[in-house]
């Protein structure tokens, strides 16, 4: 190795591109050349200082903010652990002294009057049998086609196409296909169950009486299901999953590579076809069955929470973070269906968008922030706000839509490093903008692997809810 080769290895170190083999060579050279050791250290120090000066997300303010957040979070955690330990100790002490003689006398008195265990078991079995009887009965109701709205509907019965008319009694193995501007409803006699088949959907009835079994091959159904008999739940199969329903309201959407379930009332058992993994999805939650997606019931997406503070002077994010009204007393709260706010002219104003991000695929994501004044973006490695770190900042504001900088404008990259996210999980995210005067706006975009940069749509967002 010579001095020239050392320089090429030094360049690799400064660019974080050193291979293990190059590292061995470099260490050997450093051992033999004390001057090279000094040179390496000086370069590392110097160019890190330069990076701190030039990268917005590494600015002193950004660093100090993140530091403060982590210190407060860590202190909260330690205090919580300390308090919990003290409570446990107190509770153990109290329990030791509480079983006095009066308690024992009362317990013995109760025991004397209770019937023998044999009688209790027998009575419970009889009661259970009476209560369970309706569960063995078949569900009533034969499927019928309700009036058709829009254009044409195809119904295939075996090889034969039959006319879709209101009141048509559907049979097992009938396949119903709606057109691009058509939808229809399947009703079940006197039962309140109604299945709305949305445009461009294909549904096959697997049974026509008894328990309801359907196969949604593609498209969407919006279903209201009356309470079913215990042993005859309604089953809806899709290419990726099976939904088991006893009585609820839900929407099921199937495409060729994923099935999404949204439950608005009751609960649905959702099982993936590929590996039999199952999850119970309750009201207000959704689940996705797809390749490379972790099955989980998560709060429904569609919006993110916006909080607004007014009358707080200062133009830096810290001016909000240090204010007594933050975070619990915003002047206004509402939901946004995309990760952006409109442009407004205002003074002494702060805004926070807070919630969860739901990545659609597993991979490396990049985020961008733009804001009228100082704006910062935090992301947590999981759903807990405590682990959030600042990943991007718009120092001094950035044009809406990240328009190219004007001549003379110092270009700052409001861009995060690549962050690996796993589909099927949700991640805590928040963006804050603080404006002293003039225009205020806040936008956050991301780049889904393999796609272009876009403002994050409500489809991938859910509003913040404190985790209990």
């Amino acid at each position, binding site marked *: 190795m010579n001095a020239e080769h050392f320089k*090429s290895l030094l*360049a690799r170190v400064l660019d974080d591109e050193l291979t293990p083999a190059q590292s061995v060579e470099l260490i050997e050279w450093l051992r033999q050349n004390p001057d090279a050791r000094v040179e390496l250290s000086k370069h*590392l120090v110097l160019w890190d200082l330069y990076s701190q000066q030039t990268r917005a997300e590494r600015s002193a303010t950004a660093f100090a903010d993140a530091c403060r957040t982590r210190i407060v979070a*860590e202190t909260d955690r330690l205090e919580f652990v300390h308090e919990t330990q003290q409570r446990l100790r107190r509770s153990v002490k109290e329990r030791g002294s509480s079983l006095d003689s009066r308690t024992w006398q009362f317990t013995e008195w109760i025991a004397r009057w209770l019937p023998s265990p044999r009688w209790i078991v027998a009575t419970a079995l009889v009661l259970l049998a009476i209560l369970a009887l309706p569960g063995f009965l078949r569900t009533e109701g034969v499927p019928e086609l309700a009036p058709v709205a829009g254009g044409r509907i195809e119904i295939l019965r075996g090889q034969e196409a039959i006319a879709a008319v209101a009141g048509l009694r559907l049979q097992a193995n009938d396949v119903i296909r709606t057109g691009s501007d058509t939808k229809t409803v399947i009703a079940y006699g006197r039962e309140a169950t109604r299945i709305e088949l949305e445009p461009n959907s294909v549904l096959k009835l697997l049974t026509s009486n008894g328990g309801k079994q359907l196969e949604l091959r593609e498209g969407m159904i919006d279903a209201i299901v009356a309470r079913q008999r215990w042993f005859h739940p309604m089953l809806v199969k899709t290419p990726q999953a099976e939904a088991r329903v006893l009585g609820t309201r839900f929407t099921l959407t199937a495409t060729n590579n994923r099935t999404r379930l949204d439950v608005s009332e009751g609960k649905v058992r959702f099982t993936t076809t590929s590996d039999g993994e199952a999850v119970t999805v309750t009201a207000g939650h959704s689940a996705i069955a797809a390749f490379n997606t972790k099955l989980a019931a998560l709060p429904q997406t569609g919006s993110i929470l916006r909080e607004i503070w007014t009358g707080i002077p200062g133009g830096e994010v810290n001016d909000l973070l240090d204010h007594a009204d933050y975070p619990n007393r915003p002047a206004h709260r509402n939901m946004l269906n995309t990760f952006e706010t409109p442009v407004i002219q205002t003074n002494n104003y702060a805004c926070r968008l807070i919630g969860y991000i739901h990545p659609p695929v597993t991979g490396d994501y990049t985020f961008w922030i733009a804001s009228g004044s100082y704006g910062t973006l935090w992301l947590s490695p999981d759903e807990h706000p405590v682990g959030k770190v600042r990943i991007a900042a718009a120092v001094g504001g950035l044009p809406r839509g990240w328009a190219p900088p004007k001549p003379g404008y110092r270009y700052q990259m409001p861009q995060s490093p690549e962050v690996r996210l796993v589909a099927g999980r949700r991640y805590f995210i928040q963006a804050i903008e603080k404006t002293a005067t003039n225009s205020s706006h806040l936008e956050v975009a991301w780049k889904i692997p393999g796609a272009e940069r876009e403002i994050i749509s409500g489809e991938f967002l859910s509003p913040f809810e404190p985790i209990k």
Partner: protein
Amino acid sequence: MTPLDPDNLGAFSELVHEHQAGLRAFIRALGVETDWVDDLAQETFVVAFEKRHQFDTAKNFGKWLRGIARNLVANERRKDARRARILDGPLTDYLVENQNVAEMAEAVESQELIQAMNDCIAQLPERSRALLERRYEANENASALSRIFSLSPEAIRQSLMRIRAGVKHCVETKVAWR
């Protein structure tokens, strides 16, 4: 540990502001990957805040911070290689054990270095300054820069290294950094 109160954290925030630049540069000089330097520096301040009552105020706070950082970086070696935040295990071992990294960090004030470096960079030709800015401000690697500047990645690395060496030499003429 006493309960956290805003005054306490306020005073500590001032120390963070004062020492953050030098501490981050020191952590980088221990062979930590650029993208993880700030994370480890924040951890260092979190540990320092938790142990603040153990600190002897007669002693050098920066040196105490660097001791904590050195331990945190050394701990990275116990992690699975994929999870470790360092550039290369053996190189970090070497740099952690090597005293001259600490000497470099203590030899001169970070603000003095930054001032000198900014002066030196201001004297660079336009194209060299643009290359540095794209490399650091936009965080683009040699492959990305090679497309922008129509040069091979190796030529970009060599150009950058020449610029860096020139700036370092210029800085050494302005501050006593031996």
